[in-house]
């Protein structure tokens, strides 16, 4: 490959046949999809169809890096896992930090595609050009920490490992894939995809170089980035919030605006929020670290030194986990939250979905929709940390009610019936994240349109979270600032969500961390246009218009993937809790989320037809997605924007 920044190869592994091979990446695909989840989207589109079952051998697990991975670009340690989700049946994408992504690049591969199913538990060991299949029967059943210890013990500490725990082995639909000890591919059930393949782990060590096109120019830009991170306008705020407290710095701030999910999102304000804040967690911190090439250093490791949960050690817990396992369950004991976070990591469970499944069953119990007998004698009362802990174990082990809950909140509500659907908070089958669209209206649009489901990482906007007027003016124009920055209006929220979705589609293809792009908003399209040409030698990447078009292409491809699965406009809804139940307490009291105007606006900016929920055919052609249009037309009549 003539482009730099890339290894230039895809490694394919077929577990059914125990074989592997490589393929050079076509340069036109790089120009069109960049890498990371963009390139993975193209590959997944071509590797599956609507009849591919997510837990079948045919469903691939795609591990992808981007051109910035392993090159000292800022916050470039993340990499992505892509597949069809066993939880939702649609697009599955998750990102994890740490150091494994660069190892894949250094081993000589931009992407790893795993298909098939092994006869017995296996791990894939990649050591540059050498790929081995390692009988992992003795590892099956181990938690993720013991798995990583075993593998590193046998192979050496210079290997980095991604693995599943017992939850993935038992095909829990929201099981995660852990990376080394403290990072996770959390959402959409990718642990179950690995489990269905009897794939326990992937361990990688790479020793090759990654070439940069213009090292001198690239280093100049890295110097600029160093300045941005150390002395730029966002440097101090980032260090004093994310750097000092990690993501839990958000807890009391979100409570202050009435957006802290409390009691299964019944309300957004909790008097006990201080007990689970970033400040409260500080006394448990034993280590602070960063991902590869990151100066923000938001990873905090916490440990409980005494008492009931003595010995519990956890990466994080992050804001989402603190909320899902804390305020969402009315559990204020921070040590119990650290313990539950650790338990989820050891079992390999997505903390967000786990917390929301538990709060679902807590509310069902409160409302008399399930009995103590049905819960195996558990008193599923709000604030009952013992019950929450036991439910985590039951879910991971698929015991009793845990077997139903392990299917996710949508299927659990179907199984339980009795109007329990009202308390099953999900969009497209993915449990909601730690925001509330009644207190931050654009979240409603974000959740509804996100290709994963109720997801905060495909397009969460922060310009309206606390009101960053200068950024809003720069990106959307001074005339729109007042409405853009007002978290309680719907106006222009479709626009800003679409813009953020495009930005993140590109960021997730490079791959850069959301901390630096979502918040603090240091890097935007113009920055990406500066860093990519000296890295890759691809001149087109220096043109902001080209990058925006590329971003739109990737975002549209992912949306069309779901359309091909038969999931479209009718699924872009919100749980009635957010649309019909006014926020009962707190600073956002009285508000509901009116999704419709935001959705209409989003569709207009996205170049899709709101009435049919379909892309205009000319939108797809403009974006070079003719092959997608051809395929969709087998199922749908695509409108054209110039039709009367």
């Amino acid at each position, binding site marked *: 490959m003539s482009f730099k920044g890339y290894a230039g190869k895809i490694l394919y592994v077929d577990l059914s046949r125990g074989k592997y091979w490589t393929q050079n990446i076509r340069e036109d695909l790089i120009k069109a999809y960049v890498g990371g989840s963009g390139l993975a989207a193209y590959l997944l589109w071509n590797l599956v169809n609507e009849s591919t079952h997510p837990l079948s051998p045919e469903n691939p697990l795609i591990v992808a890096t981007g051109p910035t991975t392993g090159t000292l670009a800022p916050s470039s340690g993340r990499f992505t896992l892509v597949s069809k989700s066993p939880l939702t049946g649609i697009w599955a994408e998750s990102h994890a930090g740490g150091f494994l992504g660069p190892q894949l690049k250094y081993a000589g591969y931009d992407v790893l595609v795993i298909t098939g199913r092994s006869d017995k538990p296996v791990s894939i060991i990649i050591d540059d050009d050498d790929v081995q299949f390692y009988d992992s029967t003795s590892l099956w059943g181990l938690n993720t920490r013991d798995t990583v210890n075993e593998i590193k013990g046998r192979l050496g500490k210079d290997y980095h490992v991604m693995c599943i725990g017992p939850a993935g082995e038992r095909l829990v639909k929201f099981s995660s894939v852990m990376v080394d000890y403290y990072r996770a591919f959390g959402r959409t059930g990718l642990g179950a995809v690995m489990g269905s393949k009897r794939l326990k782990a992937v361990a990688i060590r790479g020793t090759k170089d990654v070439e940069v096109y213009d090292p001198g120019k690239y280093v100049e830009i890295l110097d600029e980035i160093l300045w941005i991170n150390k002395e730029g306008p*966002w440097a101090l705020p980032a260090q004093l*919030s994310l750097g000092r407290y990690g993501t839990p710095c958000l807890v009391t701030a979100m409570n202050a605006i*009435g957006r802290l999910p409390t009691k299964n999102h019944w309300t957004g304000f909790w008097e006990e929020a201080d007990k689970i804040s970033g*400040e409260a967690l500080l006394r448990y911190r034993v280590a602070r670290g960063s991902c590869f090439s990151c100066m923000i250093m938001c990873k905090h490791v916490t440990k409980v030194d005494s008492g009931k949960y003595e010995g519990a050690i956890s990466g994080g817990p992050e804001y989402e986990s603190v909320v899902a396992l804390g305020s969402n369950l009315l559990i204020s004991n921070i040590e119990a939250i650290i313990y539950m976070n650790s338990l989820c990591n050891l079992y390999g469970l997505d903390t967000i979905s786990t917390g929301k499944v538990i709060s679902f069953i807590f509310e069902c119990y409160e409302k008399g929709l399930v009995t103590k007998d049905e819960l195996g004698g558990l008193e599923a009362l709000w604030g009952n940390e013992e019950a929450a802990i036991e439910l985590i174990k039951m879910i991971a082990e698929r015991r009793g009610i845990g077997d139903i809950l392990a299917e996710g909140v949508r299927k659990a509500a179907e199984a339980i019936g009795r109007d329990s659907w009202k308390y099953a908070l999900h969009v497209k089958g993915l449990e909601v994240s730690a925001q509330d669209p009644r207190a931050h209206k654009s979240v409603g649009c974000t959740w509804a349109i996100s290709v994963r489901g109720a997801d905060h990482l495909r397009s969460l906007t922060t310009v309206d979270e606390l009101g960053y007027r200068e950024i809003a003016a720069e990106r959307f124009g001074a005339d729109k600032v007042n409405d853009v920055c007002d978290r309680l209006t719907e106006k222009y929220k479709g626009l800003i969500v679409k813009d953020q979705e495009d930005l993140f589609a590109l960021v997730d293809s490079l791959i850069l961390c959301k901390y630096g792009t979502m918040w603090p908003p240091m890097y935007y399209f113009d920055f990406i246009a500066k860093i990519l040409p000296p890295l890759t030698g691809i001149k087109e990447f220096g043109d902001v218009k080209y990058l925006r078009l590329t971003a739109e292409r990737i975002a549209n491809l992912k949306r069309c993937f779901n359309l091909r699965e038969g999931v479209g406009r009718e699924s872009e809804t919100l749980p009635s809790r957010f649309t019909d139940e006014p926020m009962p307490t707190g600073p956002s009291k009285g508000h509901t989320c009116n999704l419709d105007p935001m959705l209409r606006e989003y569709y207009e900016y996205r170049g899709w037809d709101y009435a049919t929920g379909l892309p205009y055919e000319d939108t797809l052609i403009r974006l070079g997605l003719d092959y997608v249009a051809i395929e969709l037309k087998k199922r749908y009549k695509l409108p054209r924007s110039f039709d009367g």
Partner: protein
Amino acid sequence: MVKVRFHGALKDEIGLDHVDVNITQLAEALSRLPDNIKAVLEKYEKYLIVLVNGRRTYDLNISLGNDSVVDIMLPLGGG
């Protein structure tokens, strides 16, 4: 009585999570804070985010109702 709450690094440096003041105009309420608190707020003045009853305000001359809550924090965001 107006409650003025401090968050994150401000709370840690000030050593308090809130103070109560009996003033109904924001600028005056902030000017009546103890000197040690004012010193910390002045240190980070260009970064401060001020919320009144959960809503961001850029106007320090606004009136405060009884039982208003003023939150002062440094910029942050995300999810």
